């Protein structure tokens, strides 16, 4: 007895839900939009002329509690200029296998170079591809921007870039979603050959690479 009515009751729940509002998301066909301040993939922003805002200071790496960021500074020269001023990041990597999206790095960044987008589609099928380099992280060039290296276009010195920079904070428009992740299926490995070196690829001297140690 009880069994018979019981199963009707059960089906009743099922039928009732068929007429309720759907709460699952239709991913990946219409990906949901996170909150505006959602901590997603990082962006390395540019100055309005295309020069990089990052000065390679490593403050983000210092702030990172997960040791996900690797930066190596380099010298800007008059012939090879990537950012205003003396210093730029010759290597910049964020390892998304480590990043916990806490956002401490973007708070530490003194030039507002590093910000976070809303992008969360960061699954990759190899650890190597989870290490994003400047190539993936740099904001795309907007109209009027020029691919560095090039001389400073906004003035004679780096001051012309920094004074008033806060009223012209972002050139990250368009970088919210990386162009190659639009469909949600591509990843960096789809462009073989033009991927810059990351921590794992063999460089000279890495033949005897050791686990990275840090002194804090």
């Amino acid at each position, binding site marked *: 007895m009880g069994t018979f009515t019981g199963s009707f009751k059960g089906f009743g729940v099922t039928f009732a839900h068929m007429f309720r509002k759907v709460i699952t998301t239709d991913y990946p066909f219409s990906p949901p939009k996170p909150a505006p301040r959602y901590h997603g993939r990082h962006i390395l922003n540019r100055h309005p002329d295309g020069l990089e805002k990052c000065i390679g200071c490593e403050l983000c790496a*210092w702030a990172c509690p997960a040791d996900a960021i690797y930066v*190596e500074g380099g010298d800007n020269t008059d012939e090879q200029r990537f950012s205003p001023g*003396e*210093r730029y990041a010759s290597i910049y990597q964020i390892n998304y296998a480590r990043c916990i999206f806490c956002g401490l790095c973007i708070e530490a960044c*003194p030039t507002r170079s590093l910000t976070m987008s809303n992008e969360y589609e960061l699954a990759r099928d190899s650890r190597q591809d989870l290490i994003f380099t400047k190539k993936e992280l740099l904001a795309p060039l907007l109209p009027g921007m020029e691919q560095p290296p090039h001389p400073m276009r906004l003035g004679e010195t780096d001051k012309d870039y920094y004074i008033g920079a806060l009223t012209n904070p972002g050139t990250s428009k368009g970088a919210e979603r990386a162009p190659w992740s639009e469909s949600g299926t591509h990843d960096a490995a789809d462009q073989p050959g033009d991927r810059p070196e990351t921590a794992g690829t063999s460089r*000279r001297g*890495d033949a*005897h690479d050791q686990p990275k140690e840090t*002194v804090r």
Partner: protein
Amino acid sequence: MTDVAKKTDTVTLTIDGIEVTAEKGELVIRVAERMGIAIPRFCDHPLLAPAGACRQCLVEVEGQRKPVASCTQTVADGMIVRTQLTSEVADKAQHGIMEFLLANHPLDCPTCDKGGECPLQNQAMSNGRTESRFHEHKREYEKPIHISSQVLLDRERCILCQRCTRFSEEIAGDKFIDLMDRSSGEQINVYRDDFFGGTGFGDGQVGEGEGDVAFNSYFSGNTIQICPVGALTGEQYRFRARPFDLVSTPTACEHCASGCSMRADHRRGKVLRRLAGDDAAVNEEWNCDKGRWGFRYATANDRIMNPLIRDKRTGELREASWSEALVTAAEGLKAAKAAGGVGVLTGGRLTVEDAYAYAKFARVALGTNDIDFRARPLSAEEADFLASSVAGGISDVTYDDVENAPAAVIVGLEPEEESPILFLRLRKAANKRKLQVTAVAPYLSRGFTKIGAALVVTAPGEEAKILAEDAAVAAALGAPGALLIVGERLASSPGALSAVAALAARTGARLAWVPRRAGDRGAVDAGCLPNLLPGGRPVTDAAARAELAPAWGVEPGVLPGTPGRDTDGIIAAAAAGELGGLLVGGVDPGDLADPRLAEQALDNAGFVVSLEIRGSAVTRRADVVLPVAPAQEKSGTFMDWEGRLRSFPTVLPTTAMTDGRVLEAIAALLEVTLGTGDVMTIRRELGAMPPSTASRPAAPTVTAGALPTRGATEAVLATWHHLIDSGSLLDGDDVLKGTARPSLVRIGKDLAESLGVAEGDAVTVSTDRGGVTLPAAITDLPPQVVWLPTNSPGSSVRRSLGVTSGAVVRLSAGAAGPILAEPPGSGSAALQAENRTKGANS
């Protein structure tokens, strides 16, 4: 220390309510430090004279109207001091000073190399206000200016503490940077050419001693290390890393026999910088620029990573597996041993452990005494001298003895160029103590001038005579505690080392032998000499051999009892085809007395095994090349000129093997157990060895040669190495090489007149082998003596001239003529070989 012993009177004072007893004359800041009270400071440095320049160390002293600088205030009896910990006044004063210091300090910490290890950053946090009341424009200067090719000065960041200028003046004696201008325009700067109209350093032609030049000092790196802000930075480390990226390892310097302790900082498998370590007994807190910046050779592109063997078919070197290479090496050495024997050349760059492995390998596995570490001009007299007066810890003069000596006579050594830390200690002793230096040298070099040396003018070759006869020298050495400091260069002056030993015995002076390379003294004690076994045991002494045999696990009869061939003998025998093979570890033929003959020897030797870090003139000619670890990738011990052991751990653990381990593997294939596979085993073996009871051989008694006769345009050659030269350990460090002293040929007035040349004109020095043309520097030299840097750009004396110190050379004005006589008997093959190496080495 005599210093402490003399000042027995003490005073009692109170700091922060704690009573403390201090030496009279001690500084308040030091006393506080001893008590664990940290007073913030910038200009204060324990090894520099007090300056009171930054005012950060203000404390309140009862009875004084204003806060006083604790780094200049000496203690007094009954003094009551209150630091920032207990006194509002002191704390407020310190906060105020910090605000002043920051008024003009730029906020470019994110781009500054000092960020993260900056005393200004740290003390601004601990003893500074959170907000500044200065809102005016900060002082601006051109961002960093190069004050030498290696050192950059950012005047905006400078807080005018004057540590750099005080170091340069007090310690190094190279006053090339100074305070300039007045008031808010006051700045540190060099005497730049635009102010003084000199040639400047941009063209690389730096004169000596003029005031219009760049920061021309071998010790400039120390100013970067002690600058408490990022005003002085180094080109090589610029923007490379942050302190938290770096793993620091204490290490020892592999360059010279001064024995500096150092710190190597590495990041991800690469050494990025080296700093002077702190060792009061040796280098205090300083080192030289060569040790600080000369380390890129280990990551040069020609580093050998895999064994190479000469392919039988093609005759070219090809990569091989370790097992194949080791078997080939062992079989080849076995055959060579049967066919005339194997000579072992080890160079002076080995650790004590590796040198010991070679010494043992030669005796036990190869059954020969044909082993020599001396990769330079040498003599049999020198080997006897080393046996009688140096080996086995006989010479035990220390840096401390140098500092406290009343007099020192220096022969065959230019301390600033050849042992820079010894130079700093000599300078300290001469300036702050009572040391009188007598230089037995051809001229008063810049280094000798800076230590106030009295010159006993000596042409190369005359040393023996001067030492035997000169009254001033003998008188100087008569004082108790006087030192006779001799360099390795005396080996090329016949009779000089005999005269040194005799003079020391006669006057009672203590003898110190200062070689140039870090591994030289260790190699003497490890037995890398044809006449010595480890521990200074003479090979000819049967009792000494019997002592060693059980330690090595061999029958006493196995160890050869006749002295072997020295480097020259090995080279000559190999060139003549008498030797079956050569085992060479880290020798550059260009350093040997006759590079051309050395290369011939390598070509003619039946079988050559080379243990090397990088490709060289030896590896190109070798049959088997076995890669070994550079100093940073292995642990070991260097023995400095004092005989002090400088052990260091591995900085970068890699798969690269030590020489000892490779030799052990070869020995195993020859069915010999060497036991040199790892450093600890060797150290245990050396430690367990019984002290030698063998009697010491007598000092050599070689009679002095006479100065050769010279024609009107001929001269005797004097030569020594510049500290920063073309040596292969400085390859890849181009910004460092930019600070090298210029290559010049020094001639006296007599020669300048007879050649008709003025200062700066080209002069050619030539022999039958070739010539060297350099600008002339007219110097106060003895008649008909010419000086050349041994191995500097444009002046590779041994390779181009084929001679060394004491030889007669021809001089002519202007560049060399088109044809220089071809040496007799040089076949075209040898010439080609010469050209090949020349090209590769330049």
